[in-house]
Structures are given as structure tokens and as C-alpha cells.
């Protein structure tokens, strides 16, 4: 178990992708000499500004694109292997779903592709619809869904096979703050149960709290990589967290600090960030009225619990 937990699930060596035009002349070097190794059970973040090659990397991992150079080893197989695809879940950057289907039919269809039995398909579909808050909209056509609803459905289909490796391209894009928080909590819970998660984002606030390790890409090249806590630690500063004191005590305290350690000390009052505030307002609003389906507190689908 311990051994398994530390083994690598994905190993990328010197991965390069050059997009060529019709005449095979190189056009864009979207990924350039990328090395990655993702361990089992961790949440790995692929960060970078627009056009830095995050989505391209993910498509290479899934076999949707073929690398120009470099190699990818994915769960003892290669991208595109049927056996590998059985064990991964993928949420694309934009959820490309069948407009004519309802969410329920969509999940049942993808469930068939995973060769799930009819009973299993139906059970998982119901659980995932509830988990993503789509039960109320389960029989409407996906074509009329809002962006966030489509995103939730995309997420549900990525979890259908209880994947070992979950590859998410900007999982929180299009989601409201409640949804973002739910997704983050869900990802953390999945990772705690042993699912490996590879996600991309440029919304740093989203990934800050959940990623174990990150790579920051720019122009197709990795620019910084490592453990998120180490990367973000500022070793020469610290904060002191206290209840609000009266003005005189505060002044005395600052004075003492300055005198004892001969350094600058500053006072500031922490404020809630907007996300926390938004979540609180919506929670209060849903307490009275019947909860909006999309805002209902999610419950992890039973089949995902190990």
C-alpha cells in the first residue's frame, strides 16, 4: 500500500509538441521539453498563463495529440491504450457534450462506453447527478444548459468510472463560487481516498489550497516546479494571529516587539476574502428558502468512496 502510494502514475520525459501547418512547416512550439512525474494519490497542478501549453500537454497525455518528441508513460501503458483509458477520467477545457441528450442519457451513454452493467450505470448516473446538483435538470436537453451546468455534467462524466487518474482541464472555469468550492472540496476528498488528480488552471486562488505539487509553464516550457508549500513559503516573515485588542494594548505590544527584536512590525486587520463572503451570503439565502438545486450541499457519490 505504502509502496503503491509512492509510485509514479505518470511519467513525462522531454515532451515536445510542435504544431505544423498544411505543408508541415513548424508553426507553434506549444510544449517544449516538459518533464513531469506525478505520484499516486497527489493533486498535481499544471499552471500557466493563456497559451502556455497546458491544454496541449493534457491532450498529449490522452492521446488526442501525438508528441513530436519525448515519451509519456501512463499507468504502465501509453496514451491511447484502451486499458489505460479504462482507468482515467477526463474533463476537457470546454465540455463538448451531445446537445440532443439529457444529462441522464449522457451519463448512461458514457457508462456504456465503460462497459458498466445496466444496473451499475443507472446507479452511478443517479449518484453523480445528485452529487453535481443536476438532479432537477436531469431530463432537460443539454443543449439548453448554462455553461456552469454543462461543466458540472462534464465533471460527472469524468467520474463515471471511479478513475484512478483524473485529468481536469480548468475544472472550475464557468462555475459559480459555490460550485468552485464544492469542486475543490470534492477533489480534496477524492485525493484523500487515493485518486490521483492532474489539473490545469490559471486561477491561482483555485489551486492554491488543494494542489500538492505544481509546475508553472510559460511558452511551453516549465519555469518553476515543486511542492506548493515550499514554493509559497516566505522564510523571512511570519504572522501573529490574535483577537482584536484595544488600542492601548496594541500600541504597547508593537512597542515591545520593536524593542526586543529590533525589526519592523506592522498591524493589519484580516478581512474575509470575497469568496468566503459570497459563500456565506448564498448559504444564508438558501437556509430560508428551498435550496437552489445547483447550490445544494454535495454528497460524495457512494461508488467513489473507498
Amino acid at each position: 500500500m505504502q509502496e503503491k502510494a509512492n509510485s509514479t502514475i505518470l511519467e513525462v520525459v522531454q515532451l515536445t509538441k510542435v504544431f505544423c501547418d498544411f505543408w508541415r512547416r513548424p508553426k507553434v512550439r506549444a510544449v517544449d521539453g516538459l518533464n513531469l512525474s506525478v505520484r499516486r494519490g497527489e493533486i498535481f497542478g499544471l499552471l500557466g498563463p493563456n497559451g502556455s501549453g497546458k491544454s496541449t500537454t493534457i491532450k498529449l497525455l490522452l492521446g488526442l495529440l501525438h508528441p513530436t518528441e519525448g515519451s509519456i508513460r501512463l499507468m504502465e501503458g501509453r496514451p491511447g491504450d484502451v486499458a489505460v483509458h479504462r482507468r482515467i477520467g477526463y474533463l476537457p477545457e470546454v465540455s463538448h457534450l451531445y446537445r440532443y441528450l439529457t444529462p441522464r442519457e449522457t451519463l448512461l451513454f458514457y457508462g456504456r462506453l465503460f462497459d458498466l452493467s445496466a444496473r451499475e450505470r443507472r446507479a452511478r448516473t443517479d449518484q453523480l447527478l445528485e452529487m453535481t446538483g443536476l438532479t432537477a435538470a436531469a431530463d432537460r436537453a443539454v443543449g439548453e444548459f448554462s455553461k456552469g451546468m454543462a461543466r458540472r455534467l462534464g465533471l460527472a462524466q469524468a467520474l463515471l468510472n471511479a478513475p484512478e487518474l483524473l485529468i481536469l482541464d480548468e475544472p472550475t472555469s464557468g462555475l459559480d463560487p459555490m460550485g468552485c468550492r464544492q469542486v475543490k472540496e470534492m477533489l480534496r476528498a477524492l485525493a484523500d481516498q487515493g485518486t490521483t488528480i492532474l489539473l490545469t488552471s490559471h486561477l491561482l486562488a483555485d489551486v492554491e489550497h488543494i494542489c500538492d505539487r505544481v509546475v508553472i509553464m510559460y511558452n511551453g516550457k516549465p519555469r518553476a516546479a515543486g511542492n506548493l508549500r515550499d514554493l509559497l513559503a516566505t522564510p523571512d516573515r511570519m504572522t501573529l494571529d490574535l483577537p482584536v485588542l484595544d488600542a492601548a494594548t496594541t500600541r504597547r505590544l508593537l512597542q515591545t516587539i520593536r524593542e526586543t527584536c529590533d525589526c519592523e512590525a506592522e498591524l493589519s486587520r484580516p478581512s474575509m476574502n470575497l469568496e468566503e463572503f459570497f459563500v456565506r451570503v448564498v448559504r444564508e439565502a438558501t437556509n430560508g428558502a428551498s435550496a437552489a438545486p445547483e447550490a445544494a450541499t454535495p454528497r460524495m457519490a457512494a461508488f467513489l468512496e473507498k
Partner: protein
Amino acid sequence: MYNRIFGIAGLMFRQAVRSRFVVSLFCLLLTVLVGFTLTIQGDGTASGRLQVLLSYAMGAVGSVLGMATLWLACGSLATEIESRRIHLVVVKPVRVIELWLGKWMGILAVVLLQLVAAGLFMWAAARIGEHRTVAGTPDGIAVREEVLVAREWVEGRRLGPPGDRPVRWSLSCPELPEGATGMATLSYRFLSAWRDQPPVIGHWMLRGEDGRIWFESDCTANQDGVNRLKIPLAQLRGGEPVELLFEERPNAAGQVTGATFHPEREVELLVPTGGFGANLMRALLLLFCHVALLAALGVTAGTLFTFPVAVFASLALVVATLLAQFFVFSTAPERVAHEHHHGGEEGPSWIERVGAHASETVRMAMAPTLRYRVGLRLAEGRRIPWREVQAAAAVLILGYGGVLCLAGCLVLRRREWALPV
């Protein structure tokens, strides 16, 4: 495997239904069929009307369904690749052959549904046509014995030199069904350039190998059009060779017209061996095999090209297949070489040679696809054998369809799904 194939097929079918493709096609077919039923007059007789109706209906159903299917098939994979919906499918444990077969079978389900509907309509139209005539009247007999039956037929092979009297043919009587009681038909035509020629008076005789006479009868025949002589089945012996003799006799004025037989299908013996319903079904199955091939062509074209290009390319191939049958006369390689030989100093240019070989290649490669057409057989009450349906399924679906499937899978395997086409 089957789960995935049927899943994809079901999705294809559902999309065709929800995008209103199925209902539109159904309405189109219905309009065409109802239109034909209401407007076709034929030669004024009920049997003539029914014949024209059946042959037009088969042709129209075939071409409308063929075009619509080709269109649907071209879009099946091409639009999914363009819209990137395919990404979520190919990252599931799906093999490309499952993808191809799933799409193809979904389309076939749509085709089958439409064919069943069209078949029921044609069957009903035929039965109504039958009920409108009175059994026993010439028109009633024609409808029942010439149109709404399935008849085995053999052509006579002429014996003796031209001008030999009596005119003789040899033919082998088709196998008769157990305890058959109906009438066989001997159908014959004369070569005549003018209308209103005097009728030909003559005498027909069927003689077995042992010299015994099976049947004989005098006749009065028209010089234009098809003449029919009814022979009770009880007087024939199925599966045995027979000699057929015709001798013209002088008419009332003591004259002999000396009419000669039409070189195509001089005489034919038609023996009823089955009903119209089963024959219609076999005709529709033949049609189904062709449409299934078009579907395969479309799906594979959709793996290579964008939707409009796929439609264009596969239509071009269909048209080239049909045209190559005619072009062969002007550009067949040996003919080009022949003209070179006799035409003086200038040989055929390389363009002519390449063109000739290309059209010959297309013709040779595609000729088997044109071998299993229904043609006029259904309307003329001729039997379409089960063996032909099986052969068509083997050649068109397994053979050509298999090659197309393989080609499509090869393309799909090598494809980078996330690249624009």
C-alpha cells in the same frame, strides 16, 4: 464490445431522430410515394399502372434513401470530429472499429426503419390495386399473374440456323413448387417497326426430350408488344429440358406475315414460384445492401474529410462509378491503342492513356457494386432469388463495406483527434 457498439449505434439513431432527420426523411418518402400513387396512370390498365407504380416507387425509395443516408453517414463522424465531441468518446476505452461499426449500425437502423415503412406502403398499395380489379377479368388476371407474383424465368436458346422452320428453342423448365396448380406464361415478342400490322397466326408446341408433347396450342399474336401464352403448370415437368417449337400458319386471307422474333428475349417461360410479399421483401433487402454500402462509404469519407468535403467526395465516387460504365466505350485502353494504330502518326497523349486506365480501373473496381440491382424485376413479377440477396450482402456489405471499414479504422487510428481537419 457489443455494449459499446450498440451504445454508439443507439446514440447515432437517437441523434438522427432528435435532429428531425428521421421524420423529415419519412415525410419526404411518404410524399413521393403518395404522389406517385395519386398521379401515375400507366397504360390505362390496372396492371400497367401497378407496374409503373412499383418500379417508380423502388427507384425513388432507393435514390432518396441512398442520398439521405450518404448525407447522414458523411456527417456522422465528420461533425463529431469538427465539434470535438469525439474527444470525450475516444478517451473512453473505445476501439476505433467499435466507433466505426457503432456509427454505421446506427445509420442502418434509421435506414431499416424507413425501408420497412416504405415496404409496408408499397405492399398496401399493391394489395389495394389488386382489390380494385375483379378476379377473372383480363385486367384482374394480369394483376394477379403478371405483377403480384414471383416467377422464375428461363430464356429459350435458339436451335438451328436462322430461317429454319419451325423455329426451335431449347430451354430447361424451372423447378416447380410442390402441387402447383396455377399457370405458367410463355412470353414472346416479334420484331416490328410499324404499328397495326396484321396479327401472326401460329402454333406453339412444347416437346420433352423423350419426344412426348407436353403442351400445344394455336395462337393469334400481335406484332408489337409482348404476347403471352398461358400454360397450366400441371402440364410442365420441373427441372427437365424441353424443346419449344413455333410454326406460323396462314391467316384467313391465306397469307403468312413472316414475322421474325425480337432478338432480345425472343421467348421466355415464366413459372410462378412464390408470392409478391416475399419478393418485395427481397427487393427491399437488395436495396438495403446498397444503402448499407453507401452508409459505409459516408462514414469512411467522414473520417478523412470535413462534412461538406466528405459529401462531395463520396458523391463524386458514386457518380464516377455510374459514369465509368458509359465512359468505357470512349476511353477503354485497348480502344485508345486501337485508334492510335489506325489513326495515323499521332499516338494517344499520356493524358488520354491515364484517363483511359483510370476510368477502366474505376469501372473494374466498382462493377460488382452494380450487379445486384432490383431493376424492373419486382414490377414484372420476376423472382428475386434469396441466393442473390445473400450474394449482395456478402459482396456489398462484407466485401466492399469491410474494405471501407478497414480503411476508415486505419485513418482513425492514425488520426490526431485534437487537430483541426
